[in-house]
């Protein structure tokens, strides 16, 4: 990794934090639990790294670590999005 790419990543990180602040301050308290479970599922994006490890051509310890990481991240992603949907289905307006 070069210095320039590290700084580019820090730029992206800092700007994304600001986008996050802007978006999330607009989420009403009523939706705070689905926000947590939904954002939780998004943090399962680590699965990208897990796939790159488990799918390597040569087999060694990284493959196994990657596979366990896929299991963890998939639980996070699938469980998170499903449970969020289950909750959001309940937020209906009644007449």
């Amino acid at each position, binding site marked *: 990794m070069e210095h320039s790419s590290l700084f580019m990543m820090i730029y992206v990180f800092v700007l994304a934090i600001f986008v996050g602040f802007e978006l999330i301050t607009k989420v009403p308290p009523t939706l705070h*639990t689905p926000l947590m479970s939904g954002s939780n599922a998004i943090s399962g994006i680590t699965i990208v790294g897990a796939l790159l490890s488990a799918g390597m051509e040569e087999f060694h310890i*990284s493959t196994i670590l990657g596979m366990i990481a896929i299991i963890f991240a*998939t639980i996070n992603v699938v469980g998170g999005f499903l449970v969020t949907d289950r909750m959001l289905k309940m937020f209906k307006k*009644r007449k």
Partner: protein
Amino acid sequence: MEIINNIILVSYLVSSVLFILGIKNLSSPKTARKGNFYASLGMLLAIVATLFDQNVLTFEWIIIGLIVGSAIGTILALKVEMTGMPQMVGLLNGFGGGASTLVAIAEFYKILYNPNIPVTSMDAGTIILSILIGGVTFTGSLIAFGKLQGLVSGKVIKYPGQHPLNALLLISVIVLGVLFVFDPHNTSYILIVTAISLIIGVLIVLPIGGADMPVAISLLNSYSGLAAASTGFVLSNNELIIAGALVGASGIILTNIMCKGMNRSLMNVVLGGWESAGTVTTASTTSQKGSVKSIDSEELAVIFDNASSVIVVPGYGMAVAQAQHAIRDLTNILEKKGINVRFAIHPVAGRMPGHMNILLAEANIDYEKLYSLEDINDDFPNTDVVLIVGANDVVNPAARHDQSSPIYGMPILNVDYAKTVIINKRSMNAGYAGIDNELFFYPNALMYFGDAKDAVSKLVTEIKQL
């Protein structure tokens, strides 16, 4: 190959945008479900794009991982009760953190087995950082899960030398991290840092008490995002950095809201418990100001029948007793009589942000009837009856005027300004802060003892018979 790489990069960009749109749509209950769908679409796109990466050549381990993970995730998501949502979120946080640590360790072994891969100090540094954040998130979340599930004591646990020990562990991680940067092929540094990170996670969440869990869960939520972002730095992947930063920001905002709701600093929560929590054993009976008046369901039904406006204040006790459906029945019968029923939700009611809201939504109560503290606090003087179900410290007027009270300064719901305040509790025990609630002794306060679900159901039956 070049074209495929570019398509993958564009897919990551689109996926990041879908995450942002997803969270944006969470700003209203009307669009929230669509938002969650956008975000899941973004995730699917990122996963599929990664499968086309030139470094992904074998698929058997990937398929096993995806199937096992999807099965467990689906079962968890479909089985969990709405009251168990704080534990669920805690557990999912933990898996996210665990994945980050594993990916960072896997990256280390790739470097170890491929001496041709050039390693810069930044690569080594980001690996250590990722292991640390992920590891702390992993075990910290598991302890939070255990506490919420009742597997680990929910009490404030304090032990001598707690803070020096944590500081020492953190310093050793930093020292080992620096050593690793200069010797990035040394396995023992990685293993020791992993072990210490896992221990730190246990030690920082263990002292946190049950009612402080909203803060702990929010903070761990933030960590899980930062863990994903740190993995992004390890892999030089902007999508992970963006997604992780969004989640990190979300967790920080929620943590801040929770701390404000308790008028406490983050430090105070993390260091463990209310100042008095360790010293006050049981609520002292000597400080009683007069006696409390209790009421039975029959008399209470008459009071509700004569009211024109009612505000319900739910707390963790409602979740424990699963009383939300009984409360929905009460709401329906009162509304049929033309009585205005609203709900006042304190920011830290329950065990996680928005905990009360999902329980009431589960019971099919219109979300437009749920009001936050700022929106409803001025309406209490014009309210006939307030019904408090399983809440205590968040309605204690001592927070407004008693400077000696540990909860002084905490924003509370001004229920005592209403004409009549009904407090449903199982007994006279003190709340989490371990202090008496003077509200119970107010002239306009009536105690309605009993398990929340039974008591509210009984009340509904009585009102029907009027």
